[in-house]
């Protein structure tokens, strides 16, 4: 479904991604784990078209994403819950969700998707008229994910959905990710919380200083000695 082939991305002169190749198949949860500054968010930003790769290709269902205008990427079915959530602080919860559906051509499914988001995150429904900036961190994370779902994407990119959340909320968020996936949305999940990520993913990639150093099924990555040492905190 989504295929990155030898993608190189630069920030000015800094070589951030040094030839990343990732494949995400239809219906999968694929996770990209790695430490701070390894290039996880850069990978997602590159897929979304916010940064252009200097070389390599990004193909979604046969369409080269790196060749279309950045705002068309969302129209083609890529939605993201970004790092730091990036909700619109002075717009209401409902307006935030409406903006999520901006790229959709058929507006008919809007109400249905809104109901779906509210059934996944009942808390958002209670806060519907509240300004995004007044929500708690967990609620903002739900809003960011809900907003991405409103685009009815083919593939959902999740960037650190567990960051800064209380453990009980982290579990709720991960349960919801599984539920979203079961409803048929393909997911590429970026996480520092490697243990949680690997326990719900089908496959995983390990990224280090801009390079993929390992890729395997989630189960075998979890039992890999090197991964355990570096990312799972198991000695």
């Amino acid at each position, binding site marked *: 479904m989504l295929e990155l082939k030898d993608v190189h991305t630069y920030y000015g002169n800094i070589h951030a991604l040094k030839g990343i190749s990732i494949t995400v198949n239809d219906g999968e949860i694929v996770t990209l784990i790695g430490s701070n500054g390894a290039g996880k968010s850069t990978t997602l930003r590159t897929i979304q078209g*916010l940064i252009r790769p200097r070389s390599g290709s990004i193909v979604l269902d046969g369409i080269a994403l790196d060749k279309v205008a950045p*705002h068309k990427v*969302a129209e083609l079915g890529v*939605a*993201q819950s*970004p790092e730091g959530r990036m909700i619109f602080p*002075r*717009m209401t919860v409902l307006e935030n969700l409406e903006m999520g559906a901006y790229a959709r051509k058929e507006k008919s499914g809007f109400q249905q998707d809104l109901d779906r988001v509210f059934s996944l995150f009942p808390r958002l429904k209670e806060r519907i008229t509240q300004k995004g900036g007044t929500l708690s961190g967990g609620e903002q994370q739900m809003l960011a994910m809900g907003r991405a779902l409103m685009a009815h994407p083919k593939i959902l990119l999740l960037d650190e959905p567990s960051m800064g959340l209380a453990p009980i909320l982290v579990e709720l968020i991960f349960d919801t990710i599984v539920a979203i996936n079961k409803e048929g949305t393909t997911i590429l999940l970026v996480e520092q919380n490697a243990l949680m990520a690997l326990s719900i993913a089908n496959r995983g990639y390990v990224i280090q200083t801009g390079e993929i150093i390992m890729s395997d099924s989630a189960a075998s990555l979890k039992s890999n000695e090197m991964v355990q040492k570096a990312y799972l905190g198991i000695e």
Partner: protein
Amino acid sequence: MESIKKKINLRRLGTLAITLYIVFLIGPIAGLDVPAIAAAIKANPLQLVQFLIIGISNGAIIAIIALGYTMVYGIIELINFAHGDVYMIGVFTSLTVLSVTGTLDSKDPVKIILGLILALVIAVAFCAALNASIERLAYRRLRNAPRLAPLISAIGMSFIVENVGLMWAAQAWLVPSFGTTGGASQKVFPDMIGALFKATGFNGGDVNLFASTDIALRLTAKDVLVIVLAVALMIGLYLFVQRTTLGKAMRATAQNRDAAKMLGINIDWVITATFLIGGGLAGAAGLMAGLYNNTAWWFMGFRAGLQSFTAAVLGGIGNITGAMLGGFLIGLLASFSDGYLNARWTNAWVFATLVLILLFRPTGLLGEQTGQKA
């Protein structure tokens, strides 16, 4: 924590004391003579209402121009210095349309009304296109450059547009009343509303609506026109920004450009639309100001721009309601200063008020705290 707050409060009180001291020191020179003002109000209380009317009319025009500053700043954090000059072009565009269509010499009320509507439409369209072209030409490529670069570029555009106005004001073949003295002098913008009243004979042909009554007030049809048109534009803009998809996309882009991009919003188009709307408003303000003040001058955009920019900052730059509020406040302040203080010191009073308000509310009256991007 508590003691720091106390310290800040003390410091603010100190600032206030110094400011008040200066106000009372310089105030009398600048016309602040409380007993004299009180006596003037007592002698003629109706005059207060008169200055209120003048203040609101002028404030309405300032507010409409201020909207253009605040919308552009809200979305790309740039002070569009050329904006005041786009407004000046609006004055000249409408004057030229009125002249070319023969409306200026017309005695036919229908023709005058049609001419005015045409002038409004063309001034709005032309200024919208001009403002968007300025963005395309001078700002877009500098969007990711250091902040000073587009600022200097904006000042440059301001000079260029001013010189276009200077040349325009010399084209007597377009508007015969420009004369042969060149473009530098102030030109007359004929009183079309007065002409309309004379043509219809409505209200005895007098533009002052209180002319035939005993009330010693001057509320002209021009005041009513300016206020009604301005308020209609404000309501329209507010609904547009709150309700429509493009309006929401504008707010989203202003609040978080990267997130807006991710959601598939075409940032370039949203910014162009913002400049189109701001320019269109400036064009409408141009016609309103021409009809109201009856002058057209190539340099008029500078002062109007300064006042409107002040209004935008006073209300909280980036905030649309704030710009409207700031515009009316500055109009009223200027009118009362002209009337009761000292007209020569009006700008000083306006800016002193701005300084005082910013000392206590650095984000402006309705400005929101920045940095709440959670």
